[in-house]
């Protein structure tokens, strides 16, 4: 049973389609990247999944059923814009918001202490939210999102405003969630974070899906016919190589349609060259996005 199944959802405001016939599914035990530029329709898609706003048409099933009051307890959601009760103490905020997810006070307190300790925030538990830094507030928000042990966690721009230490902390916790069999949806426009964390992605632009599937397969699909080489000695003419471009610390070799990277590597080795690095050039997600978005605009 997939954690999320979205079928042909549409949402328009003032006759402008913000999300247009979007379909995808997210499996349990995977980190799924919902990516796209600002204004692509990511947040609207998430709000429809969370039943915060109604889709004009289409259907969303969460953990095999339509979202209900009961199934909301199985979800954890961290919206893009962070907010907590500024005048409430950290521990009281966590307990109240977790009670709305069906937790009783005792287990919420125990789990809150555990997570505060894990994130190094235990010393701040009696502080008011307004006394915390922005980053600390985000950590508390993250705790609120996962404290009730949700089956599906949806994070909208989770790394925005976080320092490198807290970013690493969050990444580690995402990995833990995946290892526990939870489904995690990361919505972000930071492609590098997605490349590092996600198993599969859905790239949307102008409310429509432009890329969807396994991240490594997508990258392979957009892989060019070139290799990156760092070696000692003069390269000279290499059969099967049509172009050589010197970059900082390496050379990019463009292969002709016949040659394979393996053949080129064998030819270099047979010349007795000392090779420090030989890598099949793979475009970054950002480069793929720019290419796809460029095609769509064209």
């Amino acid at each position, binding site marked *: 049973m997939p954690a999320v199944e979205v079928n042909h959802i549409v949402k328009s405001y003032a006759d402008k389609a913000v999300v247009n016939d979007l379909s995808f599914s997210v499996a349990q035990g995977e980190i799924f990247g919902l990516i796209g530029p600002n204004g692509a329709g990511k947040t609207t898609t998430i*709000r429809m999944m*969370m039943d*915060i*706003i*109604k889709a004009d048409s289409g259907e969303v099933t969460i953990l095999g059923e339509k979202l209900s*009051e009961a199934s*909301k*307890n199985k*979800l954890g*959601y*961290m*919206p893009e*814009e*962070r*907010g*907590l*009760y*500024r005048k*409430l103490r950290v521990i009281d905020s966590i307990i*109240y*918001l977790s*009670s*709305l*997810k069906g937790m009783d006070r005792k287990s919420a307190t125990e789990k809150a202490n555990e997570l505060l300790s894990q994130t190094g925030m235990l010393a701040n538990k009696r502080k008011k939210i307004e006394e915390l830094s922005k980053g600390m507030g985000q950590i508390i*928000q993250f705790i*609120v999102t996962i404290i009730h042990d949700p089956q599906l966690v949806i994070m909208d721009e989770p790394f925005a405003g976080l320092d490198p230490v807290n970013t690493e902390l969050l990444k580690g916790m995402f990995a833990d969630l995946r290892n526990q069999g939870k489904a995690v949806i990361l919505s972000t426009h930071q492609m590098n974070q997605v490349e590092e964390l996600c198993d599969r992605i859905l790239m949307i632009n102008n409310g429509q899906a432009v890329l969807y599937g396994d991240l490594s397969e997508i990258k392979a699909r957009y892989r060019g016919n070139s290799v990156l080489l760092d070696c000692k000695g003069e390269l000279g003419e290499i059969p099967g190589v049509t172009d050589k471009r010197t970059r900082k610390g390496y050379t990019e070799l463009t292969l002709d349609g016949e040659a394979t990277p393996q053949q080129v590597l064998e030819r270099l080795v047979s010349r007795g060259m000392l090779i420090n690095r030989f890598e099949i050039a793979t475009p970054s997600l950002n480069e793929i996005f720019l290419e796809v978005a460029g095609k769509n605009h064209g």
Partner: protein
Amino acid sequence: MDKALLIFRHEFLHTIKRTGFIILTLALPVLALLAIGVFQLISGIAKPPTEVTRIGYVDEAGGFDQFATQGNITLVRFDTPEAATQSLIKKDINEYFVIPPDYISAGIINRYTVQKEVTPPSATATAIKNFLSSNLLAGKVPATTVARIEAPLNLVTTTLTATGNVATEQGGLGNLVVPGVFGLLLALAIIFSSTYLLQGLGEEKENRLIEILLSSVSTRQLITGKVLGIGAAGLAQVVVWVVSIPFLLNLASSSIGGFISTIQIPANFLVLGVTYFILGYLLFAVLSAGVAAISTTVREGQGLASIFTLFAIAPFWFFSLLLAFPNSPIWVVFSIFPFSAPVLVMLRLGMTGVPAWQLTVSMAVLVLSIVGGLLLAAKLLRTYILMYGKRPNLGEIIRNLRSG
């Protein structure tokens, strides 16, 4: 526990712990205590004089030589105005007056004093008036008639029922006290609770917490929990005020005297008062929730909400007209109009008998307005709570409500 109940508990506790709420709850009894203290202090300072006041007079008309003692005031006769003036300068007398020869035809009395005044003290005026009338009537009518002329009216009104029996509910100022206080408290509770609700929802919208809440609960649960939680806090505030009233009245009784004994609670008022209180609060609360949904900031919401809270306090602006004509068709219409009905009906209950049909229609309209308001607020909340930055205009709201 139901999530609406959790929100109710959170909102109630959160509200009653607010510094502003605590100050406001205590402020009313404390201010009343202060007022009683100040009243008693002034009363103590300004006790009716026990010393005899001496007022001089010059009788140029003739025949004013009896009844020189009028309560604590002694009237001292002088032969000439000059002699009276000398006595005034020496402070033998406090003031004097001259009865001119044509007093009977003209009725003018000339008074002389060293005090600068706005009007003559009432005790002095009464003493002079009684001195003059007593002398004018002396020997012509019996003394008891003179006394009655000086105090001609003590109007005692008895209200009868339609069958001619003495009504259990009698009118009078004392009858208006409890409904008036309830009306005032309702108006205050409406204003303050609406403010808390607006602030709460407005802050949650401003800091985007609303999105987290709506990922856990429905809009219906959110509004229900908030309206009832903050409403219960408002009710607790009113209970504190109401409970403090007997204590304050007891304290004030020595100052206000017999007035307290005239206070009556109109028949059925407790049932009707509490009913209108709850209906009135619920109506304004659901409307506040709707206003919060379409407002971009707390301040903007408060500005919008003040438009309809004005209706709640409007009956107090027209209090004197209401007192004079409590059954005017205008008040009947506004007793049915839902925004003004709760406070207006309470005030009218203390002034007159409000017919059963008016109460029935008014309550029915209120209930329908609350249900409609709740549906509207839920719809507005769902449509606009996640729209930030720009408040929708009326046309957009109507379009969205129709399309949705």
